[in-house]
């Protein structure tokens, strides 16, 4: 979720309803799904978190202020500079000419010019922040949207957008003093290194240059140190966006243009001319309003919000959100504001009605349907099992499920079995550290880890957990499965096979399972002191228990004899808790 920094004074001024305390701000922030993250510091900058990732129009001081202002009943802005399918605004020779060579590499570019008072530090900072947030959060880290600002006065229009030879094309990038080729920029410039992955495999690299051939930038990587070095005091800026999705670019351009207008700048349209047919023609003028109207049935709004609205209540609510709408024949049709593009479905209109009404408008009411609640059979079963374990004197533990290969495998098995054990285990591809690189394959590993840090606890230690483990499992479409296992461990001077055997016997008796034991060779246990549990009528082992091998205890640094066991609950549950058996 984007977090932005805003000058508190600038925000309050743009809201335009007089001084506001932080508390008052926090009371109106919800209409923009905003939260005050940090109050203003001594430089007057406060931090605000914006929760809606589909509302990039709110990620700037002007955009946030606009939503708050309108919601408070303030003036609805008008933005007369938008062209659309039927109207084309005057671009006075400002034009971007697109070369066919970009079609396969980074096809889209749009732009406009903002002029007015010389930009000051606050405006520049906000513009740069908008650029960052739009291209990072909304533009997938410049992959689908990159944005550049230039000193318009120095540009000779038309600007040309073309594919350039990575080795031959050279210019001085920002933060450098000498000319570099495009390829060298990717290698040597910090921004080049950061964004190289977007373009490095392309045959030609995107390039913007003016009509005299002076380079504006190498999008989406870096501006030129001359035309692209915007500073305080500049009063005419060319704003350009390139990317992979035209509507997203037009939307982002609209956001920046509306912000500029709200800050008092004049937006001067720029024509973009393509050598191929686009959804908006071969040539269109930016800012361009492309959004289609969104409709929502009043019955649907009423049903979802649970309130019998009059048409005009809905319209008033939408108006508070800055949305022009009309109602007819049981349907509301909205004109999507130019700075928004988050109406995918009628339910998106419903939400704006909700916010426009304010949450207090909706009286909480319990659902009327009667339903029967129940736990899963596995949960019911594991609760019975836990009660039994507690009765046998065991302390229940709750463990994390991620750990290291060392803990889950290497400390349990002899070296020649590691490969095999690893091959059964679910490993994380992108671990944050090797301490969280595997999903645990057994509960016993967790219990040993606990025992290894608990030598200070009074003995005997009797601990258990009922929890999940995961393993690779070919028959499942995911090639893995999650199991619910009971694991138990006893650490004590007298811990031995006979006692753990008695306990297993008691557990299975009371859970109602007949079973037999079969000696098993499991190298975690001492040979001849480990048994598999075979449920009556099956030859499938549902569990194993025995005396842990001193090699295992030594690997964990445990100096107390231990017995342990692990039983799969799904296996027991499938067996249905039938009676009978050897007890």
């Amino acid at each position: 979720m984007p977090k932005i920094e805003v000058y508190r004074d600038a925000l309050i001024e743009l809201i335009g309803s007089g001084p506001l305390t932080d508390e008052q701000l926090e009371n109106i922030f919800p209409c923009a799904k905003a939260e005050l993250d940090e109050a203003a510091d001594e430089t007057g900058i406060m931090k605000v978190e914006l929760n809606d990732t589909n509302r990039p129009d709110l990620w700037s001081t002007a955009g946030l202020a606009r939503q708050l202002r309108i919601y408070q009943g303030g003036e609805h802005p008008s933005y007369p500079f938008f062209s659309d399918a039927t109207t084309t605004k005057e671009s006075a020779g400002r034009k971007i000419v697109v070369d066919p060579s970009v079609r396969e590499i980074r096809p889209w570019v749009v732009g406009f010019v903002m002029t007015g008072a010389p930009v000051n530090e606050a405006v520049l900072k906000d513009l740069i922040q908008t650029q960052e947030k739009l291209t990072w959060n909304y533009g997938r880290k410049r992959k689908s949207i990159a944005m550049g600002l230039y000193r318009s006065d120095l540009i000779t229009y038309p600007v040309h957008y073309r594919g350039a030879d990575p080795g031959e094309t050279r210019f001085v990038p920002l933060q450098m003093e000498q000319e570099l080729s495009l390829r060298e920029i990717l290698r040597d410039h910090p921004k080049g290194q950061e964004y190289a992955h977007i373009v490095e495999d392309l045959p030609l690299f995107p390039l913007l240059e003016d009509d005299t051939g002076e380079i504006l930038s190498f999008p989406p990587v870096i501006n030129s140190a001359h035309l692209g070095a915007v500073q305080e005091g500049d009063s005419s800026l060319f704003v350009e966006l390139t990317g992979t999705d035209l509507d997203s670019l037009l939307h982002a351009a609209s956001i920046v243009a509306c912000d500029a207008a709200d800050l008092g700048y004049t937006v001067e349209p720029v024509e973009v001319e393509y050598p191929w047919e686009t959804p908006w023609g071969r040539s269109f003028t930016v800012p361009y309003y492309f959004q289609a109207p969104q409709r929502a049935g009043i019955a649907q709004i009423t049903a979802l919000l649970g309130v019998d609205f009059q048409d005009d209540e809905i319209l008033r609510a939408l108006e508070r959100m800055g949305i022009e709408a009309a109602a007819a024949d049981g349907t509301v049709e909205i004109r999507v504001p130019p700075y928004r593009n988050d109406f995918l479905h009628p339910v998106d209109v419903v939400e704006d009605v909700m916010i426009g009404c304010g949450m207090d408008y909706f009286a909480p009411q319990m659902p009327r349907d009667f339903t029967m609640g129940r736990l899963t059979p596995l949960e019911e079963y594991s609760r019975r099992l836990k009660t039994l374990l507690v009765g046998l004197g065991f302390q229940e533990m709750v463990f994390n499920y991620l750990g290291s290969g060392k803990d889950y495998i290497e400390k349990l098995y002899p070296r020649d079995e590691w490969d095999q054990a690893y091959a059964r285990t679910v490993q994380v591809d992108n671990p944050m550290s090797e301490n969280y690189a595997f999903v645990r394959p057994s509960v016993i590993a967790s219990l040993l880890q606990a025992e290894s840090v608990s030598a200070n606890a009074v003995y005997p230690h009797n601990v258990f957990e009922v929890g999940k483990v995961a393993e690779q499992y070919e028959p499942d479409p995911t090639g893995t499965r999650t199991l619910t296992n009971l694991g138990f461990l006893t650490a004590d001077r007298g811990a031995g096979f006979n006692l753990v055997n008695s306990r297993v016997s008691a557990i299975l008796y009371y859970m109602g399972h007949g079973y037999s034991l079969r000696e098993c060779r499991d190298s975690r246990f001492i040979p001849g002191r480990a048994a598999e549990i075979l449920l009556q009528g099956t030859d499938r082992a549902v569990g194993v228990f025995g005396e842990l091998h001193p090699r295992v205890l030594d690997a964990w640094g445990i100096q107390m004899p231990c017995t342990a066991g692990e039983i799969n609950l799904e296996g027991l549950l499938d067996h249905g808790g039938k009676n009978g058996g050897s007890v």
Partner: protein
Amino acid sequence: MVSDATLKNLHPLEVKTLLFYEDGATFDAPRMQVDLGLVLGQCNQALSWLEAKGFLRESQRRTDIFYERTDLGTEYAEKGTPVERMVRVLAEQGPLTLPDLAAAAGVENRDAGSSYGQLSKAGILAMDGEKRVRLEDPAAEPDRAIRQLLDRAAQAPLEHSQLSADEQKEIARHARKRGAATAMFKIIERESVSYELSETGTGVRTALRERGITGEEIGQVTPEMLRDGSWQGKTFREYGVDAPTSRLLPGRRNPYAEYLDSVKDKLVSLGFSEFDGPVVETEFWNSDALFMPQFHSARDIHDVYYVKTPRHAREIEEPYLSRVAEIHEKGGDTGSRGWGYHFDRDFTRRLILRSQGTVMSAKSLRDAEIPGKYFGILRCFRYDQVDATHLSDFYQTEGIVLGEDVNLRNLLGLLKMFAEELAGATEVRYVPGYFPFTEPSVEVHIKHPRLGWFELGGAGIFRPEVTKPMGVEVPVLAWGLGIDRMALMHLGLNDLRELFSSDIENVRLRRRQG
């Protein structure tokens, strides 16, 4: 004045000791063994308890000397001393040269020489003309005195004061304090302390007599007493019921798991059925089915754990895959315009560790009943640096409500009920929220009596893009609750890592607060 507690805290051994000895009588542990018929250990226990309580006073401290048989002494006692052995050999074999005699008796030549000198002086042995040693007095019993001492010392060390003057002289020749390996006896010094009753002790004794306490009261009632009725007519020792107890290690549920169970029980009581599912999921169910576009920023490599082997599920169940893909691209038949991008059918099979409980909410839609209420408390995994407020795996509490007529007000009603029933909230506030899979979306903030205001959870109405591909045509309320803060509060903790503690002692001592 002697208090009740003082008397009750007396052990029968203490009572018997106090009652037996009159003012001025001195006694020590050996004395008590005789007087009270106790074993030494009991006597020492009674003395140390009584002394610690100030009921006894030390009257005399002396050092007693004991002679303990050494290994050598034991050997001599069993096989005979060198002198005894030489005499025995001569009696059996007749005269021998001194070296032959030494060899036959198993004695060093040097020792044989000095022993011969000693015995010839006493007229027991003599040398004949052929330089052979001859037994002169077959009736003699040399080393008789030391032999007796060796034999007497077989059971217990000999006490110096119990020996006659001759014996004392004799044993002194064969005993050493240090380096006793070459001697028959080792000298041991033991301190022995005698006691007499202190003034307080006398007072306690008087009180015991007044109360008729004898130390013969019944302590532990035994099955035998009950069987033979021997308890009848006797009194029972009264215990100090406020005495400190010893620690037990009971079997116990983990309080965090118990708390989660209590939440589950509450949800079941509110009509919710539990769901559960695997920890390894596909991108499809974890995010695509929730209408999160594949380019969504929350789906970055840095938010989700990917599985290394296998990397991909073999397939995604149809018709869900085709429906979801179409909806992402163009909205399908949901009335949505979709995200307008090319849906990646390979990426959707990528295996990950479940990153949100909402996965199961979406999956459960496939065979959900209408009306229906479902919930799960599910382990989820996030690519996060582990600290006091972030874990790499943790529980999320999620649920859904399906019904022909369910709406936003019902959602708020449910959240209010959760706030009051699960969190004990005193005030509830709703604000608009954002989740990729719900529209509208709300957050619920609550005022908790102890924690103050905090965000309890998020909720909303599932987007049709989420419900329709699962075959659900009715509205679905979806909610998620953050219950960890309350869990921490219940357990008196403030670090999430503690909920999953491996420290057995720590977990044993943990309990619910309030």
